[in-house]
Every structure is written in structure tokens, then in C-alpha cells.
């Protein structure tokens, strides 16, 4: 009956949607090998824009700064987000819980322009009163990034903790382990995959942020998105296409490797399950 028509419609919509998502990125890669300076006009194959990209000292400096910010941010966000997630799921009712819940989930939906502006005004006010931060750059960008990244980590940890069976923790407690030992020896190792996922997400969020970094950065500290933005504002540039190609390649490899590892783990688990059923 109508089932065929329906699935044909769904198939078409999915193909259309995926093409919408991917064709622009494929074209971005394609034109990075364009000899011509005018990006969308094909002038023959060339890799010269990659050379132009790597010759630029600015690009190198921006990449280093962005990676530094992203790494420190991801580490702190992972720690703070994990603590916040633990407090939210395992601590029951405590004073200020509503405020805490609100503050931890608000950054997820807060427009970036507001977060950026308010943090910059905080840094300026702090500098006026206590003399810190005396200049804006790596530290201020990292603090700003931690503030919104930790919210994402907390969400991941929260959902992990709610889905996790508590029997191991209870068993440890019954065997006489103190709550702190249970946390360190049982809960945290069980949370490790979630914490890793949180670290990766915080790392990517930081690498991707333009607006908050532009607000809280000072002279001389230019992150990679800030550099890209200042160049593409004035129009299309083939060296940016080359940069985009490299980024897309790195991400694609990373995601494929992660998917492969997850796939292997799942297969392993299914195998173990089968074997235990047979015996």
C-alpha cells in the first residue's frame, strides 16, 4: 500500500538532507586544489595554496595558541564537569541546588555574544579592583572556554551516572570501603569513558569558538577561528580552503578511528555474550 511511497519519500528526504550537509564541504575541499586565485573558477590542479598556508607564520602561531587553549580547557572542563555531574546525581538535596542546576545548564543555551560580553566585562572589572588579569589572552580565553565547556561535560557525566547500575558501588560499601574510596576506586574508573568523551567534546568546542574568544582576547592573542574569520570577512581565499581541507581530513580520520574502536568493542562484547550463553 502506501508503505512503498512513504519509504521512497523518506529515502529521498534523507539523501537530500545528507547532500545538503556534505556537498558544500566537498566543494570546499575540491577548490583547495584550484590553481586560480578566484576560488569558484577552476583554473587547473595545484597544491600551491597549501604552500602559501604553511609559509604564513600567523597561521602557525594561531594553531599553537588554539591547541594550547583547547588542551588546558578540556582538562579543566573535564575535572569541573565531572565534579558537577557527581554533585547533581549523587548528592540528593543540598542548599543552592536549584541555583547550581540553573548555572550548570544555562551555558548550553546562552547566546555566545552574551557570554562573551559578560565575561569580558568581568575581566575588566576584576582588573580594576584586584589587578588581575593584567592582560587578556591565553588565560582569559581558557577561563571563558572552561566556563561553557564544563556544562557539556556535566551533561555527559550526568547521563552516564543515571544510566549506571550502582551495585558495584554498593558492594564496595558493604565490604567496608569509605565513601571517598568508593569514589576513587569504583565510581571514577566506571566514569572514565564518559570523562574521555567529555574531554574530546570540550576540546572541539574550544577549537570551534570564535565569538567568546574574540570578546575576551587581547592584542596579540589570535586563535585559529579568529584568524580565519578576519581573512574570510573580506571574501573567498584559496589558502583558507586548503586549511579547511586539512581540518576536515583530521576530523574525518579521528571520527573514523573512534567509530572503528567502538565497533570493535561492541563486536567483542557480543562475542563474549555468545560464549557465555553457550557454556
Amino acid at each position, binding site marked *: 500500500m502506501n508503505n512503498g511511497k512513504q519509504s521512497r519519500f523518506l529515502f529521498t*528526504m534523507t539523501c537530500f538532507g545528507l547532500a545538503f*550537509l556534505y556537498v*558544500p564541504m566537498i566543494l*570546499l575541499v575540491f577548490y583547495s586544489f584550484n590553481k586560480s586565485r*578566484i576560488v569558484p573558477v577552476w583554473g587547473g590542479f595545484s597544491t600551491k595554496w597549501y604552500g602559501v598556508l604553511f609559509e604564513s607564520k600567523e597561521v602557525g602561531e594561531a594553531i599553537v595558541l588554539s591547541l594550547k587553549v583547547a588542551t588546558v580547557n578540556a582538562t579543566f572542563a573535564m575535572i569541573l564537569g565531572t565534579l558537577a555531574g557527581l554533585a547533581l546525581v549523587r548528592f540528593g538535596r543540598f542548599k*543552592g541546588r536549584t541555583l547550581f542546576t540553573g548555572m550548570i545548564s544555562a551555558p548550553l543555551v546562552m*547566546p555566545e555574544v*552574551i557570554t562573551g560580553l*559578560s565575561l569580558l566585562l568581568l575581566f575588566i572589572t576584576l582588573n580594576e579592583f584586584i589587578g588581575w588579569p593584567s592582560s587578556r589572552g591565553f588565560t582569559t580565553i581558557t577561563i571563558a572556554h572552561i566556563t561553557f565547556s564544563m556544562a557539556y561535560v556535566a551533561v555527559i557525566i550526568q547521563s552516564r551516572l543515571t544510566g549506571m547500575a550502582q551495585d558495584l558501588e554498593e558492594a564496595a560499601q558493604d565490604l567496608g570501603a569509605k565513601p571517598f574510596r568508593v569514589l576513587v576506586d569504583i565510581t571514577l574508573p566506571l566514569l572514565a569513558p564518559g570523562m574521555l568523551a567529555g574531554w574530546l567534546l570540550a576540546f572541539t568546542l574550544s577549537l570551534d569558538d570564535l565569538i567568546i574568544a574574540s570578546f575576551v582576547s587581547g592584542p596579540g592573542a589570535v586563535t585559529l577561528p579568529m584568524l580565519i574569520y578576519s581573512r574570510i570577512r573580506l571574501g573567498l581565499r584559496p589558502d583558507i580552503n586548503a586549511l579547511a581541507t586539512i581540518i576536515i581530513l583530521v*576530523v574525518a580520520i579521528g571520527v573514523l578511528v573512534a567509530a572503528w574502536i567502538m565497533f570493535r568493542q561492541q563486536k567483542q562484547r557480543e562475542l563474549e555474550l555468545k560464549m557465555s550463553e553457550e557454556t
Partner: protein
Amino acid sequence: MGHLLQRNWRTLVLFIPFFWLLLFFLAPFFIVLKISLAESVIASPPFTPMIEWVDEGIMNIRVVIDNFAYLWEDDLYAKTYLNSLKISSISTILCLLIGYPMAYAIVRSSHTTKHILLMLVILPFWTSFLLRVYAWMGLLADQGTINNLLIAIGIIDEPIRMLYTPFAVYIGIVYTYVPFMILPLYANMEKLDWILLEAAADLGAKPMTTFFTVTLPMTLPGIVAGSLLVFIPATGEFVIPDLLGGGNVLMIGRILYNEFNANIDWPVASAVAIALLLLLVLPMMLYQHIQAKQTEAE
């Protein structure tokens, strides 16, 4: 030390993130609020203090609502607010129209296909947002891929102006935010009881009737969550209108950015931020409410 840690770890676990958020998330808002009630002056910092000590012991509190009055009276701001709301609402509907069938198709597909499709939807998340917007600059430009293609196959003689128009902004927002629509919809649909659909069909309901009386009401929580996740950030969007909209498309995020960085009018920028926050506070609370209800249900 170790002993102290063992006894007070609960307080510590809570205190560290709590303190961080109080200092770097909540306190900044009060500063923004304070500055939005000050006057702009040419000085450093470029606004008047709220509390001044006039003589010994006499405190002068100075609160100015001129900035908000200015926003209210100046046509530009009202128009920009309405325009932001219009653009984000239409974009949300477009995302829903594209995302709903995709989420439905993903849920109904086989195990392996489902995982591949989900990965394909998530993958763009991990690449640079800025570069994905940049990709559309190349597609939509006067000398861009789409115009070149249309001219080459003879549909048009002159390039159509697409870049730096509202059309480009819609494309950019829908393109960037459609995964935010698909994922909550998928999460919602996956938990549904599809037998209800078969029951409706068995009882003689036409596919259209089944859709509007069974599927749509069941997936409503997903629709609302996805729509809010698109609507809220799209309203405050700065990069997309700036890069794809040129000077023609006014959105509130852009005004805020320019007021602050180009005009250096901090009090007005802060007032714009407060006004934007007021506009979004209801949808934000609604989203949090839905999330809280969902975690409880789990």
C-alpha cells in the same frame, strides 16, 4: 591532609564547580546589568560608576535607564529585534521540515544503516562551524559555484545575487543548525512505541490520519526540544548574518557586537544584551524544564 580530604570530599566536590560558576557565570551578568544602567562617557572604563562617594559618608547611587529608553525609542533596535525573531522562527520551521523526515528515516532504518546515518549527521559537528559557513560563501557568491553552474547550463544569463541577502542567512542558519533538530527528534522517536502506528493502520486509519493523530502528538516533546535548540542560538547569531548577510541583514547579535567593538558604547551594548536575554529567557526556561522532565523520566 589525606584525612581531611577523606572527611570533606563531598563539600569539595560541590564547592569547586559551584564557586567557578558563581564567579565566571553568575557574577558577570550582574556586571552587565550594572553597566547597562550607567551612562556612556569618554574615559576608561567608558561608563559612569553606579556608586560614588560624594562627601564623607554620603553615597550617591546613580542609575540611568536612558539606555533602555534609547533602545525602545530608536526604530533600529525594535526592527532588529523583530527581524532576528522572524529569521530564527522561519529557520526553525525549515529545520523541522528537513530534520523531521530525516530523523524518522534514521529511526526506521536497520541497525547498521542507523549507526552510519547517525554518524553522518554528527560528523559536521566536529568540523569547524566557521568553515562550514565559509563553504556557503563560495556556493552563493556572484561568481560562485551555483551561479556558474546555472549560467553554464543556460538557465540564467546574469548571476543571481544570493550572497549578502536574507536568503543566504536562512541557508546558513538551516545548514548549521539542522543537526541540532535531528538529534533530539531521533532521541525522542527511538523510545516510541511503534506498535501504536500499526494498530492505527489495522483499525483502518489512513496514513495521513495516523500521522496527525498518533505520530505527531507522540513526537511533540522531540519537536519542542529540537525547535528550542535551533531557535535560541539562531536568535543571537552573529557569524552567519555577518558573513552571509552583508550589511543588509540586521540581527541582534551583530548590533551587540558592533555597539561594543566599533562604537565602544558599553552601556548600550549591555542594555542590548539584557534585552536579548529577556527575549530568550522564556524559551530557555522551557528547554530546561523539558530536559529536567526527561532526566526524571529516565
